[in-house]
């Protein structure tokens, strides 16, 4: 187990202990909810794991790099930004995907823009956002989010 995983598990364990002493039934409820969502998540985890295996194990790094690596240029960058806006992947699973893309030769800016657009922008949830918050608000928020996702990624590429 790597240090990060140990840190995360101890962090959560601490929360769990505090929660348990404060309210046993609430804590029991929380573990039930957690178990349920873990089971629900498992098939999707397996799908992602298989796809990552196929991607990294079969596609030569040069091919991947052509689309999202150094050679891809602006088109590749914008393409992945749009892909992140449209895709509807649970954000927890976006990070392993992002890591696998980095492993396979994707550039950092592309990976950063993918995660940011994926989490911030929801084309799938846009109709609901328009209905509840109004067309102007929803379009402004999603539109500006797209621009700042690109800015965040470019700055990250420059400083990391």
């Amino acid at each position, binding site marked *: 187990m790597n240090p990060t995983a140990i840190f995360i598990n101890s962090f959560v364990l601490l929360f769990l202990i505090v929660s348990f002493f404060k309210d046993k039934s609430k804590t029991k409820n929380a573990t039930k909810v957690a178990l349920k*969502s873990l089971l629900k998540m498992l098939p999707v985890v*397996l799908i992602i794991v298989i796809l990552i295996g196929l991607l990294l194990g079969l596609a030569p790094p040069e091919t991947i790099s052509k689309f999202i690596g150094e050679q891809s240029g602006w088109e590749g960058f914008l393409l992945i930004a749009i892909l992140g806006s449209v895709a509807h992947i649970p954000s927890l699973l976006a990070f392993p995907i992002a890591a696998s893309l980095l492993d396979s030769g994707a550039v950092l800016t592309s990976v950063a823009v993918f995660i940011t657009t994926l989490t911030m922008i929801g084309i799938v949830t846009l109709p609901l956002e328009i209905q509840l918050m109004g067309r102007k608000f929803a379009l402004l928020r999603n539109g500006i989010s797209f621009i*700042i996702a690109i800015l965040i990624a470019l700055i990250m590429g420059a400083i990391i």
Partner: protein
Amino acid sequence: MKNTTEDKQVKEGRKNLIGLGFVTLIFLIILKMFPEKSSSVMDVSLFYFKEMMLIFPAIVLLMGLFMVWISKDIVLKYMGTTSGLKGIIISIILGALPTGPLYVAFPLALALKNKGASITNIVVFLSAWACIKIPQELVEFQFLGLKFMAVRLALTIIFVTIMGMIVEKLNKIVE
């Protein structure tokens, strides 16, 4: 209401299982076609599966704990009409703590708007809900490293705040 969400969950679960069957089938066919690659494919898959399983049980547990301790009522109660820097900080924290998909946050945002919260705060709240979640940051830490996570988090907070102000200004101009 509860029944329909449960129905939806069951349907979604079934869809995921069908998807898994389909992907497994493709996986097996491809491995048959390229037997020389199968060990490297399996290695990669197993590696990522292990990495995910090391932290996902803890992450969903954390989300469960947030769910029982931080209710929507608490968010509504504390997120008010405070403006300025304090309002923005409160919006970020209240957006980052509870869990749930973005579409759960929209009705909350609407309630906040009706309560009189500023557009800046609502935009910051929604953005924090979407991309500054604590469980999410932990997963990012695990897979992309501390530096990547911390830099992206800092930049996100800065830009989301600026975006909130811009949306508020533009909203007024268009009106």
